[in-house]
């Protein structure tokens, strides 16, 4: 029973559900929670988890998804601006760490090939742990966080040449040929064909993302089946990962590229919200499997050696990272964040150790303790984050009050407009024509596509979802214009916005009188019945056609509207339609008729001076 899929899923989920909230409560962060839960269900504690290796392999896909999502957030222009830190900091970090490890290993009397291989491999850090922790602590957009991201991206790219170079360090021929096939299905092709295939794959991603995905997503979104859209996004990511593996590139890198290509698509927000839970679960699973995969038997046998390796790994990386950040003009706070965040081994280390072993570059006597050390260093990583958060950051905050403003992303528009149909698009156009930025959300894919052609930036998605609102910049906006025609969803959205973004002023379209009542009851002040405006305009023309002068017709309808709006506000407090409601409604109608009559016909100025238009007698 231990091996049944459902039982395994149950164990992993249970461990996560118990450990993660506790870890969060204790301020340790979710990553450490997952790792500890992994240790708990691992073979050296409760021994409930089976097949940790397979699980980890599967869960690594979470990292792929994470890079796809990160790509979605990065417009090509932004990525281009980061080329300096990516190449500079990333290259320097790899070089510095490799050389430092190489020298230490040589001094310790190890052969140079082995030392160099180990140095190159442990230069990798854990993309999963670092980015997840940075995002959780809201540090991703800080300069230190951006440095981490740049270097991690470089490491991801560097894996590809590493896979090609490591076999050259082999001490004996080994089983190079077999392993080559494992990693590169195209290895039997000549070099030029392999290069061509690689370029071809990248071209497919870029061109496909540009021209093919839009119509496909539009078609799928047009069916209005949520799961179809979710399936399509998953298909996209998995497909790209497969393609990349086929040509021997890193899947994470390929999906990252696809993400960047799709970053200015109108489906971006929707794709993000669809993949987010998958990414979260898979990453969680990944951390769990890292925890349960730590070889405590080995640690128990050579505790001194493993401790030395862990400490050495963390300290050497830290010692290299700080000067790298300083060289690239980070201040001390940013440098410390960068160095503490990156001072651990990463998931690529496992892959590369296994790879090196199969190529005869490193022996198992080297890889086994190092793998354990890397896993332990990953377990320590969240603690280093805590160190930054509890010790370093408070000191820095005391030291200086002027922090650089966070980089403001593309959507800091003052207005979020939900619903871009017949009603909303008039508002959108009006606001934009007057120079106000509007972020538009609509769940009609065709409409979004069409408006995109006219240069209106709009996003496909359901505005009742909190994460989507957040992605659309609800925290920074000032106005929320609610122009959708679905009453239930409209009320849902209002509840969410009132609760989560109380600073937003809501201007709401009401589809019916009842809907208007509901909106007033929820506390929305600016409610506009969708047909009232044009009905009143028509009424003006009707009154004039019946012989009323323009000024009288306009004034009469103004009074009518003012009175009617006050009546709806008043009636909103009454609730269901019952006798009290009907009585009150009658009263309002009678009042209105009286007011309109008196405004037009009652003379108030018996002196005959007639100074006021309100005083004129009919027929004078």
């Amino acid at each position, binding site marked *: 029973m231990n091996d049944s899929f459902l039982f395994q899923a149950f164990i992993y989920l249970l461990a996560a559900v118990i450990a993660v909230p506790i870890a969060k409560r204790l301020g340790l962060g979710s990553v450490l929670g997952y790792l500890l839960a992994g240790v708990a269900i691992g073979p050296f504690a409760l021994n409930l988890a089976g097949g940790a290796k397979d699980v980890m392999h599967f869960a690594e896909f979470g990292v792929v998804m994470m890079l796809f999502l990160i790509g979605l957030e990065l417009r090509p222009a932004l990525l281009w601006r980061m080329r300096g830190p990516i190449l500079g900091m990333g290259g320097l970090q790899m070089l510095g760490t490799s050389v430092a490890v190489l020298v230490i290993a040589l001094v310790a009397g190890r052969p140079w090939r082995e030392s160099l291989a180990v140095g190159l491999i442990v230069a990798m850090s854990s993309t999963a742990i670092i980015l997840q922790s940075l995002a959780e602590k809201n540090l991703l957009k800080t300069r230190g966080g951006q440095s981490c991201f740049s270097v991690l991206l470089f490491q991801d790219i560097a894996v590809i040449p590493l896979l090609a170079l490591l076999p050259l360090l082999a001490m004996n021929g080994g089983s190079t040929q077999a392993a080559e096939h494992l990693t590169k299905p195209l290895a039997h092709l000549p070099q030029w064909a392999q290069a061509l295939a690689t370029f071809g794959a990248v071209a497919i991603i870029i061109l496909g993302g540009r021209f093919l995905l839009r119509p496909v997503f539009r078609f799928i979104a047009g069916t209005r089946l949520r799961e179809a859209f979710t399936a399509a996004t998953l298909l996209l990511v998995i497909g790209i990962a497969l393609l990349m593996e086929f040509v021997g590139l890193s899947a994470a890198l390929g999906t990252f590229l696809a993400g960047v290509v799709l970053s200015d698509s109108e489906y971006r927000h929707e794709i993000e919200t669809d993949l987010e839970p998958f990414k979260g679960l898979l990453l969680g699973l990944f951390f769990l499997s890292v925890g349960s995969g730590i070889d405590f038997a080995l640690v128990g046998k050579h505790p001194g050696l493993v401790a030395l390796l862990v400490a050495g790994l963390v300290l050497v990386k830290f010692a290299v990272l700080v000067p790298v950040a300083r060289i690239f003009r980070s201040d001390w706070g940013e440098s410390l964040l960068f160095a503490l965040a990156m001072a651990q081994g990463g998931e690529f280390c496992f892959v590369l150790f296994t790879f090196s072993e199969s190529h005869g570059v490193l022996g198992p006597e080297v890889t086994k303790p190092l793998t354990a050390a890397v896993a332990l260093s990953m377990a320590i990583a969240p603690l280093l984050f805590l160190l930054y958060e509890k010790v370093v950051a408070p000191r820095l905050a005391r030291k200086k009050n002027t922090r650089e403003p966070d980089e403001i992303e593309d959507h800091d528009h003052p207005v979020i407009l939900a619903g871009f149909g017949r009603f909303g698009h008039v508002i959108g156009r009006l606001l934009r024509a007057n120079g106000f930025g509007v972020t538009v959300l609509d769940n009609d894919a065709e409409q979004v596509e069409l408006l995109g052609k006219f240069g209106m930036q709009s996003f496909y998605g359901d505005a009742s979802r909190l994460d989507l609102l957040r992605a659309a910049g609800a925290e920074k906006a000032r106005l929320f214009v609610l122009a959708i025609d679905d009453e239930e969803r409209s009320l849902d959205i209002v509840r969410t916005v009132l609760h989560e973004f109380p600073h937003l002023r809501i201007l709401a379209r009401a589809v019916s009188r009842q809907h208007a009542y509901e909106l007033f009851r929820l506390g929305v002040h600016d409610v506009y019945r969708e047909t009232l405006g044009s009905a009143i305009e028509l009424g003006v023309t009707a009154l004039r056609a019946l012989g009323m002068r323009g000024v009288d017709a306009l004034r009469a309808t*103004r009074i009518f509207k*003012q009175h009617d709006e006050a009546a709806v506000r008043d009636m909103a407090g009454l609730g269901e339609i019952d006798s009290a409601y009907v009585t009150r409604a009658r009263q309002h109608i009678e009042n209105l008729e009286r007011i309109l009559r008196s405004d037009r016909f009652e003379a108030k*100025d018996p002196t005959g001076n007639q100074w*006021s238009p*309100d*005083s004129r007698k009919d027929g004078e």
Partner: protein
Amino acid sequence: MPSRVLILFAHPALQKSRVHRVLANAATALTGVTFHDLYERYPDFFIDVKAEQALLLEHDAVIFQHPFYWYSAPALVKEWQDHVLQYGFAYGEGGTALRGKITFSVLTTGGSEESYRADAADRFTVRQLLAPFEQTARQCGMDYLPPCVFHGTDGLDDAGLAAIAKEYVQLISALRDSTLDRAAARNGERLNADLARVITNGSPA
């Protein structure tokens, strides 16, 4: 007891008038003064008569601040008068709501003071041109004072601007603190021709 001052401000194109922006900002900053922006409140000219009358009842002095369009006020001021100053409220039987309240206009003109003379281009003084305001005020039993006029506001530099804002604040503050000598102020063409003459030192007039 301090006077409660209501400024009825009317400018249909404020973004084009540096002078009125500065004057309006100065007035808005004063405590005990209600600054009521008519073109902001009634862009569609549909005036809420009841609300306007209530506002008048809450104040002791009513100031009209506006540019001197075609020797008079922008159209919304006239619309305001026509609707708010009703029989039975402002004049006629029972129309005593405004009795005794001080009123005057605060204006800006692009041209110089010299041109507002019988023998010059504009042929009348500003006070003469404001005769309808003066007579309307009298009809409502109000205490009408000559206008506060800022001439030559075209091409005024920052220092000049600061100077007239200061003058304006002095005048409104005196009105609020009841240190404005009404008797002295009633005569003359221009309330701000010599502020020292109309503002008493400290003791309420």
